[in-house]
């Protein structure tokens, strides 16, 4: 079985071909131009992951929301659930870059961290 995927590991957008056996074992990865592409293609065919970026509500900050990201990639199928879960989170100002806003989101083992500062009003 052959899978054609477009690498999203960086803005190059390489087209990668993955040959797989019937049992789902990866036989070869071609078309990538770097190691990250190889890794991406392997994960994408077995357990696709994505990083999540969104915002979280801030109480008493100069802005009503602060941007955040998943510290690691999340299972692709859980992105929407995690985004929805973060609607219910509210943190207190001040927030600093790297602050954990939500630990181990939905039991994925991945933390949600702030990607900007949000000082107090």
């Amino acid at each position, binding site marked *: 079985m052959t899978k054609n995927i477009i690498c999203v590991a960086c803005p190059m957008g390489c087209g990668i071909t993955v040959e797989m056996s019937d049992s789902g074992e990866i036989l070869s990865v071609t078309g990538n131009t770097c190691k990250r592409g190889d890794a991406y293609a392997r994960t994408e065919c077995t357990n696709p992951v994505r990083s999540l970026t969104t*915002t*979280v*509500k801030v109480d008493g900050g100069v802005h*009503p*929301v602060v941007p955040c990201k998943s510290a690691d990639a999340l299972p692709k199928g859980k992105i929407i659930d995690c985004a929805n879960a*973060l*609607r219910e989170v509210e943190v207190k100002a001040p927030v600093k870059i790297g602050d954990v806003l939500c630990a181990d989101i939905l039991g994925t083992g991945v933390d949600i961290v702030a990607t900007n500062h949000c000082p107090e009003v």
Partner: protein
Amino acid sequence: MIYDVAVIGAGVIGSMISMELSHYNLSSVLIERFNDVAMGTTKANSAIVHAGFDAMPGTLKAKFNVKGTRLMPETCKRLHVPFRQCGSVVVAFYEDQLKTLQTLYDRGIENGVPDMEILNREQLREIEPHINEIAKGALYAKTAGIVCPYQLAIASAENAVLNGTKVELNYEVEKIDYDENTKLFSICSGDKKIEAKYVINCAGIHSGKIASLIGDNSIEIVFRKGEYMLLDKNQSYLANTVIFQCPSEMGKGILVTKTVDGNVITGPSSIDIGSVDEDLSTNADVLDSVIDAARLSVPEINTRNVITSFAGLRAHSPTNDFIISESEKNPSFINVAGIESPGLSAAPAIGIYIKDLIVEKTGAALKENYEASRKAPVRFNEMTNEERKELIAKDKRYGRIICRCETVTEGEILDAIHSPIPATDVDGVKRRTRAGMGRCQGGFCGSKVVELLAREHGLNLDDITKFGGNSKLLVGKTK
């Protein structure tokens, strides 16, 4: 509250009438269905002050145009309204149009138009170097110019407010009753009622409908739609005067000029669309035809430089003249209807004429200490650096630029929000300050204007509209 006079419609005509009345010992109210003044024909038209040679001698159009144009420079100066007396040229592109120029010239003389001249092609090219080289000659009229129509309406309405006129916005007149005993009109909208001894009907495209509310069905108004395109200021070199083509049945054709702000404007198309649907949409084929026609005048016009397009409706009367008279049904009800071009030019003269009529009927006296002007709006963009320094030293809010393209400061926007007729929405701020009117069309400053409106009016961001009603810009918080 019983008013002496109720003026229905706060376009440039209603606003100028209200201003003139407000200088007399009369109580008056200016009624408007939209949430701001200048929201109908006044905000979307060519903005031209015509010299006055178009209308047939003896018509009201001819009479009020020539008078109004004569009054315009002083009126605008007094009210701090941008006006540029740049003159106009009617261009003959073909040999057979040259005689039309003479006809127009002769008509102008008969109408009492001063300072006209017929130019040969060389003289024309000296004034308009970018005119199509096939141009054969032109009628040049020095008294013509270009004004900011909505500023003129806003300024005169503000002056009226300063002199005690009440402005009732969001008041759509649905019913008018007349009590023969009290001699009072009751002007109703929903469960609201305004009573007045005299009514002036300046309802623009709806003036026929308003007249019919007292049983006067004599006024027929057709919505004549015109579409325009506005080009970037960096194209302002393309036109010095108002460039007309030889006129036709449907009006004065496609003009090319630059607005008081320096943008090149071209239009209008001219299509009658009945009298029901207030269709303000623009159409690709119509705009294409506008550009094609504009290129006959100035071939260098390029759609690449278009920053926006818009449409307006003119109140066309099949009588082809203004209707300015007491209603046959009731002499206390005065129709000012069918005010299409040259209505803007005529506005100052119509204002005075109606005021005289009311003064004659009521015997009201001129107030001893009326305000003749309004507070001059700050225009940071037009100031020298010395003036800017002084201004910011007095009030630091004039040091914060909100609109980058037009260099409009926070102070100017706050002035607009707290003016005698406060701006309550984004377009209201735009008409008063030009914020959002530049080349980025509010891309950057739009959200800041929304913030200021929300802050000053004590509202949330998602309460703020583009132009009232349901024209909300945002639909709630993300979370």
